[in-house]
């Protein structure tokens, strides 16, 4: 009798556990949707008032007059991101090839933890470093060769700091892609008399091109959303930068910098939530595309 009762209890417990877990999993799937909807809901007032194209292409940012032009901020984000990618892409590509194709296991063992540490350093600390090292360097050493005056708090500083920040993400995805490539491909090329480098150029890189592109897109979306570090070194002037030594004002910095006053000016909070929504949508789209490419690669190669 007791045994039967115990088994009923077990069956019931099984059912309960399963359903609670299913429930949590389904809720978690709705999560991105909830974030999107609530940000849209908050930015709806300003979208009712002005068309999205006016907002995106307008370059006057005067919250007190009700003018919200996002163009300078979008350009700021694009400039900073472009500089970051230009700096980190060649470094990561060369270094990832070295680490996965040439390096002795002992070197890998030494370098991988360092990349992990680089990934773990908080954005604020990168910002502090930017202020301590990069900003003075640009202001004192670099900028005088090109322009009359720069405070150093500039688009270039943001780009450099951001460039270093995205290295760990980019390099680890690169290495994963190279490692996933079947060894047979390399061996076939090498056995035909190709050198190591020729094999890399003609086989490894060509074969992993879609994956590399996906990794770069991931890195771009990471750079788009990075807030604190760029906020600290970019200078935050709401104008389209004319040169890399001019200050700029990327979107995330705009959100972070104005949260304090946004409730007191009409439409201000709505405008800031719209910029959060913009970031969210762009980054989700970028991430979905690149993750799908990476999943396909993993499936095709891992046989």
């Amino acid at each position, binding site marked *: 009798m007791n045994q039967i009762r115990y088994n009923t209890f*077990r069956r019931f*417990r*099984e059912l309960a*556990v*399963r359903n609670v877990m*299913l429930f*949590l*999993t389904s809720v*978690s*799937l709705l999560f*991105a949707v909830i*974030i999107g909807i*609530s*940000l849209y809901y908050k930015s709806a007032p300003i979208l009712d008032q002005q068309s999205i194209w006016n907002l995106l292409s307008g370059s006057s940012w005067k919250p007190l007059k009700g003018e919200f032009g996002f163009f300078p901020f979008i350009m700021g984000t694009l400039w900073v991101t472009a500089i970051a990618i230009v700096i980190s892409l*060649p*470094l990561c590509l*060369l*270094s990832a090839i*070295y680490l996965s194709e040439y390096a002795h296991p002992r070197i890998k063992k030494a*370098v991988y*933890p*360092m*990349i*992990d*540490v*680089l990934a*773990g*350093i*908080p*954005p*604020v*600390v990168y*910002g*502090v*470093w930017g*202020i*301590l*090292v990069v900003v003075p360097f640009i202001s004192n050493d670099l900028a005088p060769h090109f322009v009359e005056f720069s405070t150093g708090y500039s688009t270039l500083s943001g780009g450099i700091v951001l460039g270093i920040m995205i*290295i*760990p993400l980019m390099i*680890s995805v690169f290495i*994963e892609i190279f490692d996933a490539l079947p060894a047979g491909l390399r061996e076939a090329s090498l056995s035909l008399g190709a050198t190591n480098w020729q094999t890399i150029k003609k086989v490894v890189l060509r074969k992993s091109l879609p994956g590399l592109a996906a990794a770069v897109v991931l890195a771009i*979306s*990471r750079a788009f*959303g990075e*807030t604190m570090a760029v906020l*600290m070194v970019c200078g935050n002037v709401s104008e389209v930068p004319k040169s890399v030594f001019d200050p700029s004002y990327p979107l995330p910095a705009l*959100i972070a910098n104005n*949260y304090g006053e946004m409730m007191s000016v009409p439409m201000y909070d709505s405008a*800031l*939530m719209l910029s*959060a929504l913009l*970031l*969210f949508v762009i*980054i*989700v789209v970028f*991430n*979905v595309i690149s*993750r799908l490419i990476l*999943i396909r690669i993993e499936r095709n190669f891992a046989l």
Partner: protein
Amino acid sequence: MRKLEEKIFKVLMIAATLAIVISLFMILVGILKRGLPAMSWDMVSKIPGGGFYIGKEGGLLNAIVGSLYIVIGSISLGLIFSLPIVLYLNLYLPEKSRLAQFTRLSFDVLFGIPSIVYGAFGFTLMVYLGLRSSLFAGILTVTILIIPILIRSIDEVMRRVPKEMKDAALSLGATRSEIIKPILRQVAPGIVTAILLSVGRGIGDAASVLFTAGYTDSIPTSLSQPVATLPLAIFFQLSSPIAEVQDRAYAAALILTLIVLLLSVAARFYSRKFSKNKI
């Protein structure tokens, strides 16, 4: 010719790797050089006293304790949500299930969403629930931020639990919920690593708590009070024009960096045999 090209590129590759390693050391040295002179016992043992923000006595204990509160709260809350999800993916769903693949994809995407967006979302949530910026709102936001990290990294370990282990238990008549415990025991080091990773992320993130946790000079005694955090302490004190106050930002940056380094070493130690190089 072929040899020359090979050589040139090999030199370039080594140079690139060195450049990355050197930039890491430049960052650590830069922080150490400026942070060490500003460090003192007072920094880690006292809360800000009167006149702290014009350079008088006091320390950063409020921010250190605040960050710990936030991280401990959000890790516990995060585990409550993420463990059942990971278990469901690995224990209940078949290997090639569409739902599992879709869930994994969706957490990969959530992982990519920047913390400022989570901060903005946390803020709207907070306003919607009628909360003020507080320890509770901060914990909630950081929890949302770290759940994708927890799930991704625990899932990675749990996927590698041998299928035979599960099959053996089931064939002896155990229900699926009864093999949760042994499986958890099996992946415990992986869970520890995941926790350490998310502590590192949660303790260093400023953009998410900027909107939600507020800032205060005292140590909060209830969930509804605002709380100071280390990254925000750095950020706010660095923008002060007074040199002594800026020094504290450097000291705080040093403390934060040391914490993160320690976590990273510990995570390495635990995950050595469980995880490949993945960030």
